[in-house]
């Protein structure tokens, strides 16, 4: 049996954990919708086709294409069939579903809020009129820790899962935004190839650093468990550098090679950010497993004393172990 009788608590302890700041930081990242993203890729392919058409005969002006209805600029982009597929990777996952999942976790959190647990206080009050070893074990090892610490720790664990979902949301939003900028800026570079000094475009591709920033906006949690995201945070060692690259070239081939390199960097950044969150979730999993193995689990109160019938297993104790106070 636990040494401390915590049944005297007159409240159910609420973690009071609030993800508002972190959630707002995630939502502050501009969300490029599917329509805008698709248009940007279509514009890129169009600019690529025009630039390639001009390249084949140096006297051509890209604007002449507008008067040649029999020519589809996209046909001249066929040498780079990977463009649509490589960009699709950054917009194919459903951000709305990810945010709906975060909302479901909020509903789980609300079910455990102290104001939803008034019945537990009534339990504490009702059993004060009873005595005996089984009653004491039930009070001290189960009801007391449940109200005093376990519910708050379970809330923090739910907040950790929710933080993981918001961090993932940041990855998806930022990857989509970076890919969109990459498409728009590459289009401008391709459009400028016919000029005497074509443009370059320096584009930020960092994702992991943005995720780290949002995770920092989550409260530290104050958990007894080392929660990978809200207690520990993503370590600075894993944040890498704020990736950026320049899309450049004097020919369509050079520009597209430069774009391909940028897409590789962006893919690596996205994977690194997801891996960092995954590592944090794994750390939390290990902390939870370690806690559940303990005889006095913080998350899951139980009645470990074998000399007393365990009510939480449905056992019925002898009458003298659970009797009215005289």
């Amino acid at each position, binding site marked *: 049996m636990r040494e401390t009788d915590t049944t005297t608590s007159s409240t159910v302890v609420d973690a009071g954990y609030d993800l508002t700041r972190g959630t707002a930081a995630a939502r502050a990242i501009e969300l490029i919708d599917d329509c805008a993203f698709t248009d940007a890729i279509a514009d890129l392919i169009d600019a690529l086709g025009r630039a390639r058409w001009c390249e084949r005969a140096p006297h051509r002006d890209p604007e002449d294409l507008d008067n040649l209805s029999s020519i589809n600029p996209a046909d001249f982009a066929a040498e780079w069939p990977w463009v649509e597929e490589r960009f699709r990777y950054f917009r194919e996952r*459903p951000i709305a579903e990810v945010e709906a999942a975060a909302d*479901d976790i909020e509903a*789980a959190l609300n079910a455990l809020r102290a104001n939803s647990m008034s*019945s537990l206080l009534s339990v504490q009050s009702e059993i004060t009129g*009873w005595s005996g070893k089984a009653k004491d074990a039930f009070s001290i090892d189960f009801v007391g820790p449940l109200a005093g610490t376990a519910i708050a720790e379970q809330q923090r*664990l739910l907040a950790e899962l929710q933080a993981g979902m918001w961090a993932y949301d940041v990855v998806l939003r930022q990857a989509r935004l970076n890919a969109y900028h990459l498409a728009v800026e590459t289009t401008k570079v391709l459009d400028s190839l016919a000029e005497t000094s074509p443009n370059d475009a320096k584009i930020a591709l960092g994702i992991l650093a943005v995720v780290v920033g949002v995770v920092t906006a989550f409260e530290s949690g104050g958990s007894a468990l080392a929660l990978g995201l809200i207690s520990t945070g993503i370590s600075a060692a894993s944040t890498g550098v704020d990736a950026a690259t320049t899309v450049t070239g004097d020919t369509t081939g050079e520009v597209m090679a430069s774009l391909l390199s940028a897409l590789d960097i962006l893919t690596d950044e996205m994977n690194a950010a997801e891996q960092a969150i995954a590592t944090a979730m794994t750390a939390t999993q290990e902390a939870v497993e370690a806690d559940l193995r303990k005889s006095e689990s913080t998350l*899951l109160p139980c009645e470990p004393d074998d000399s007393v019938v365990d009510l939480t297993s449905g056992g019925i104790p002898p009458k003298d172990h659970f009797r009215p106070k005289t």
Partner: protein
Amino acid sequence: MGLWRTGAVLMPEVGRQFALAAISLNDAGEGASLFQTSQGPSPLSGPWNLLRETVQGRVLGATAERCVRAGSALTKIADAYATTDYYSRADLEQYVDDKAEIRAGGNGTFQVPEVPVIPT
């Protein structure tokens, strides 16, 4: 009647909150496409879902079950005392009859939703 009410109403009510939390968490994992990409699942898929399932089943679901079992035990203890001199059987039966909301469950106990089972 306090112990009987604690077992038949209060503990299941507490258990119900944990069960509802577990059900909401199950809903959060229902979106099969959350982590799916054209190049396979995200590296986050396994760790996040494993943690979600652990919290859903082994923490929230287990807590709900313990509350329900304890409630059942307390009801039986109260029932046993109703056959002795602590309070009369007739008083207890009258009290239970008066609790229409308890009988609404159909079997004389407060209903706790089933926690979704995690496939193993």
